[in-house]
């Protein structure tokens, strides 16, 4: 799905480089690592961290009360057995897709521009998966027994039930989390070494030294490093596509109208990348302003991200339309037709129409180049899209469940304050992690930026001078 921007990139947009001129090895190294090592703590940053961790405390409260009272404090009921918890889970997981996608798939596709945002995106991925992973654990009726979902030998000689999509989820999400972490850390090693060598403070040097594990940048190390990284990228690519596919199975495998659709896997993945890139933009746009990184994260990056959103947004639209078509095809007496009808005109018509506005209509402005390159507008559009994607999950889960086959059991779902506190709480957790990340680790992969520099190319090896081309050479 990321091919469209690639092609787009090929001919168009040469005028804006991936890295603004005027940089050399020393300057990029200094610029990025100084944000971590030299830059003094700003009041704004401290205030931000404190505010966000305040929200995390609220999350703590909500979860504590939940464990104390039971899931009944939420709005869920019969028939709507899943509410905000699963909506948020799917939403966060979706957001968590951009990172691995950028670092893995674009790496394979040799998109050199990804060098300046992959680190950031990966970090975002990890934090998003962290928030997502919280929900399946706490949403169960007896969370203290959630470990029963893992195949742990036990005295009851009782085992998990491997046919359940929920169990697939457990494996998919945990694998995805682990691999993303590994991938991220692998990418960090050389930069940690850089920080180690630049750190003036003895203890900081010690910490980064330990994390860098004595990386020396030997030629042999680099050789193995490169192949390992390439393989990881190769493995992560199917993985990232599989994760949301598996999440979509939670619904597609069931027999509920509105859930039981074969179109789910592709359009869930598309939706995931859609929201993922929206989140990347929402984070990157302020960050590049605050830390004055406009020369490394240029309009070009925004432009490409916008195009990815446009493309995936269209795939999502296709998914919506296909659902309606299938229902129409099933006929006016079919439960599917009823479900679609209920979405458009039922008690939850509001959210559904909003969904169309946010996810399908609004992003169409991205066809306009000037909008794609205006950070402010992109930021706003991304917010709308994120809201839209959240609504999509709300629609899929609540609207499908609240009116299914047996009219006598229809019901309504109204979130309680505890639902909201938990959701907002995870937003706080996410931003807190981002704040910390910006100050303790290089936001941009230093060594990969170095490779964007002209002087990084071995002279006598006389090939074309397009950095992209150079990198191909390096990665093959």
């Amino acid at each position: 799905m990321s091919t469209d921007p690639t092609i787009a990139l090929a001919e168009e947009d040469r005028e804006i480089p991936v890295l603004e001129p005027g940089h050399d090895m020393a300057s990029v190294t200094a610029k990025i690592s100084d944000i971590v090592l030299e830059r003094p703590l700003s009041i704004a940053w401290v205030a931000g961290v404190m505010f966000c961790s305040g929200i995390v405390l609220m999350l703590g409260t909500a979860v504590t009360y939940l464990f104390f009272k039971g899931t009944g404090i939420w709005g869920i009921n019969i028939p709507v057995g899943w509410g905000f918890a699963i909506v948020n889970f799917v939403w966060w997981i979706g957001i968590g897709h951009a990172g691995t996608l950028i670092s893995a798939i674009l790496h394979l596709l040799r998109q050199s521009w990804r060098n300046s945002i992959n680190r950031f995106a990966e970090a975002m991925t990890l934090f998003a998966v962290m928030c997502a992973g919280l929900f399946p654990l706490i949403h169960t009726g007896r969370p203290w027994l959630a470990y029963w979902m893992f195949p742990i030998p036990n005295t009851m000689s009782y085992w998990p039930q491997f046919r359940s999509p929920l169990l697939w989820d457990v494996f998919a999400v945990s694998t995805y989390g682990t691999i993303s972490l590994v991938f991220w850390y692998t990418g960090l090693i050389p930069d940690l070494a850089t920080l180690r060598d630049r750190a003036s403070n003895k203890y900081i040097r010690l910490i980064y030294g330990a994390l860098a594990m004595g990386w020396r940048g030997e030629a042999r190390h680099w050789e193995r490093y490169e192949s390992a990284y390439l393989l990881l990228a190769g493995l992560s690519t199917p993985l990232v596509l599989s994760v949301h596919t598996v999440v979509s199975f939670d619904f597609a495998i069931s027999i509920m109208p509105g859930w039981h659709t074969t179109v789910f896997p592709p359009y869930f993945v598309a939706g995931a990348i859609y929201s993922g890139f929206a989140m990347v933009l929402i984070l990157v746009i302020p960050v590049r302003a605050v830390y004055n990184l406009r020369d490394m994260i240029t309009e070009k990056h925004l432009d490409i991200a916008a195009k990815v959103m446009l493309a995936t947004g269209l795939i999502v639209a296709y998914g919506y339309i296909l659902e309606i078509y299938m229902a129409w095809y099933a006929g006016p007496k079919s439960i599917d037709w009823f479900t679609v009808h209920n979405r458009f005109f039922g008690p939850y018509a509001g959210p559904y129409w909003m969904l169309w506005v946010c996810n399908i209509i609004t992003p169409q402005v991205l066809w306009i180049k000037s909008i794609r390159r205006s950070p402010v507008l992109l930021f706003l559009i991304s917010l709308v899209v994120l809201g839209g994607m959240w609504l999509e999950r709300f629609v899929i889960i609540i609207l499908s469940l609240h009116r299914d086959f047996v009219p006598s059991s229809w019901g309504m779902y109204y979130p309680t304050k505890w639902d909201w506190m938990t959701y907002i709480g995870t937003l706080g957790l996410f931003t807190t992690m981002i704040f910390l990340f910006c100050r303790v680790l290089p936001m941009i992969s230093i060594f990969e930026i170095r490779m964007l520099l002209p002087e990084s190319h071995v002279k006598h090896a006389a090939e074309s001078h397009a950095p992209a081309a150079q990198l191909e050479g390096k990665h093959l």
Partner: protein
Amino acid sequence: MAPENTKREDTCPGKKKTLDVQSLDAKALDLAAVREEIASTSGPEYWRSLEELAGSDEFREMMHREFPKGASEWLDSFSRRGFLQTMGASLALAGMTACTRQPLEQIVPYVRQPEDMIPGRPQFYASATTLGGYASPVLVESHMGRPTKIEGNPDHPASLGASDIFAQASLLNMYDPDRSQTPVYLGETRSWKNFVDQIRTRMAGQRAVEGEGFRLLTGPISSPTLANQIQALLKMYPKAKWHQYSPLHRDNVLAGSMLAFGQAVETQYRLEAADVILSLDADFLSPSFPGSARYTHDYAARRNPDAAMNRLYVVESVPSPTGVKAEHRLSLRASEVEGFARSLAASLGLGGNAADSHFLRAVADDFKAHAGSCVVIAGEQQSPEVHALAHAINAHLGNVGKTVVYTETVLANPVDQTASLRDLTQDLREKKVDVLVILDANPVYDAPADLNFADVVLNSGAGLRLHYGLHQNETAELCQWHVNAAHSLEAWSDGRTYDGSVCIIQPLIAPLYDGKSAHELVAALMGQSTLTGHDILRSYWQGQAKSADFETWWRKTVHDGFVAGTAHPAKAVTPKAGLPPLKAAAAADASTIEVSFRGDPAIYDGSFANNGWMQELPKPMSKMTWDNPGWIGPAYAARTGLKSEDMVTLEIAGRSVQVPVWIQAGHPDNAITVFLGYGRRRVGRVGNGAGFNLYAVRSSDAPWRTTAKITPLAQTYKLASTQGYQTIETATITRPVIREGSLAEYKKKPNFAQEMEDTPERNVTLYPNVDYSDPNYNKLGYAWGMTVDLGACVGCNACMIACHSENNIPVVGKPQVVVGRHMHWIRVDAYYQGDRDNPSASFQPVPCMQCENAPCELVCPVGATVHSSEGLNDMVYNRCIGTRYCSNNCPYKVRRFNFLLFQDWETPQFKMMRNPDVSIRSRGVMEKCTYCVQRITVARIDSEREERAIRDGEIQTACQQACPSNAIVFGNVNDPQSKVSKLKAQARNYSMLAELNTRPRTTYLAEVRNPNSQLESAEHAGVDSAVEQG
């Protein structure tokens, strides 16, 4: 509560107080001190302040028990559920001590029924429960001396093994922790002995004046023994008077028979012989109708399209299960029914002139065609004239002796109860009463408002007001003495069923709180306080028994639960010639709002108000729980813009009450129906403050219907209906769910139901099918299955309460029902179709379908719900982690989740009540119907011990057992000879949502109706009603 208080306060001025005080035998109080205090205080309402001033410890203790810590908090939303969780420990413990004082062994009636008690094996005792005086024969399941379940008595013709919600739920009444636990004098805990002493002196005084000032108020009584005792009592006090009152009295029935025959007779119907049934506002399929269990059985027996089907016409003013079951239903206002009855009589040639209508003609013709095999049933709430007309028509068509039988009355001494209570109030007003004994009645709460019973009683100056009952209720509050009653499961007694046969009520457990039976109380009034209920009953029957060897006779009788040959024989009566005279203003004019009063379908007259099961039982038509909104018709709603849950002021004859309204499909226009029994002030945590008290606007001269003024209020009130509003206008979706057709359709194409939906081919599957008949996989070869006959089901809810009781299902409380978390394992869905003003409807009991391809099992990550080799969809509670995915993926939505700690783990009473064979589910666990797996297991063990196969019909699920219409059949589908297999082989057998290929083991028999071809031409009787009203 506040208004009553203040009212009572200013009705008892200081002087009268002192007067009363002297009249009281108040040794415990320092009267001088009290008088001073009274003089110096304008304190709260006096009789309570007496002991407040005296500051007795008992009082404080009583106050504490009355309002346990945080009692106020019961009223707040969460705690209305919470009541069941954290029962006032003090109460509960008091209960326990009561048991420990008397070891259980003493009262398990080994003495006359020596059976070897095997721990873990329940024993069954025949007994009876009573409702409105009428007894229903039951079997009580007892585990180690603890009654845990009530079932119908299969040997008795009035039950045939079926039971109704009231009989089932009376179990919870017995264990109700809010029951009164001691005799109470002026709020002080007293002993029975102390009571006896006081009463003796008091009654001695009455003896002197031949009972001049002695009045006894009871509910309707059918117990021969008690009646006999009361007669003796009246002999002893010749000038004393016996009054009877129950709010849901059958005065009109009585008056009707007086009008028709000049004497009181009981009318019984033989529905098995009736081809055509016409109900004039009679809801004879609902459990509150005497004999309904039998009537339902007989009616349902004639619903099989392969045999001769009966046909039911219903003319009714309040939508009822009977009404929607009818082939043809005419919706009239209560006042218009009499007009219809007269027209019918006329068109049948009984004279008078007929207002002609399509519907009427059809009924008349049908009746003529079925003279002798048809029947008219008049409703208790209809005027005496309507009853008289019904008698006349039945006689005219020669139904008497065939479909209608007249006998002696079941009630010992049938009287016009309204009049009886009016007399009592009169005497009280005139200060003629010195001793007032209120036996198991609650007039202060449920007497007609115009009698002002509370004030009258307070100002009557009656020196001894004694209330005897299960709760210290509104009436007890106004009596100096309260004696705590023994529940019918705790005491010996007897009573007559609708057919007059006598049931013996035997105690299953020692009185939890040392309560006394009515027999013992009456005996005490006669100075025979030493007699036990058992002695009284025995000695009475010793006199009655025809048999020489009384002992064996008695043992057999008690064992069987009823006295053989006591059913009333038919009685030849002839109705007076001519029709009853037309009363002036029979029909109110169409423009006024007509209000009908009805007993609540679940909590009856209010006596079940503190019964959680009943409060949470969805009422048959509206699926309403915990409340009693007034019903209005869709037409009226459309015209006035009223919506369900809107509050209105209902003004009747200067009295007004505020109630929410509920738009009930099929309800006539310009009319509102309100239900009695709610808005109780003093009954217990469950009932207090639930709903609205409609007795406040009920008057003695118009107990069932009158005209009213409705003024909408600008506020709404949240109602908890388990089925919401979407019961109607869902035809397209419900089609595969519920299926019905006409007899003609059925004859033409018997499998019409199956063809409504395409069932996937069994072998078109990626996976091989599981073979449940393969002995290698299914060792014992049983494959359990169930059929539910939609034609037979009348939506009486007996199955729901039976399931509640059998499976220890928790009560969750109104707020939880509102958010959709009720826990019923089996529910009875009601689907309305067609014209909202006169819809047809079908009831569909939905337990777990036990799908062979269970969608719920597939998605459980921990294997907490898996399949047994016998095809049961087992739930492993201890393994469940509560992902709720199974419920989401259940197309039938039969799974229930413990969102919070719904189950009560503390209250000792409830611990005693529970079925030990079914585990108690905790918070965060999914639960659902298991086909009563505990019963299957017992049967399996038995059969294996006896080295035989389980017999067909040996296992009865709780719902099946309770069902009066035998709509539910359970058995082994691997055995082609089993009843269930035969039913599944029928053409009208279909699977709910077959297209999903879940392969449910529970299947349905489509409903087949037998409409009158004259009326079938799609026109709806509702249209006619306009004509009728002329």
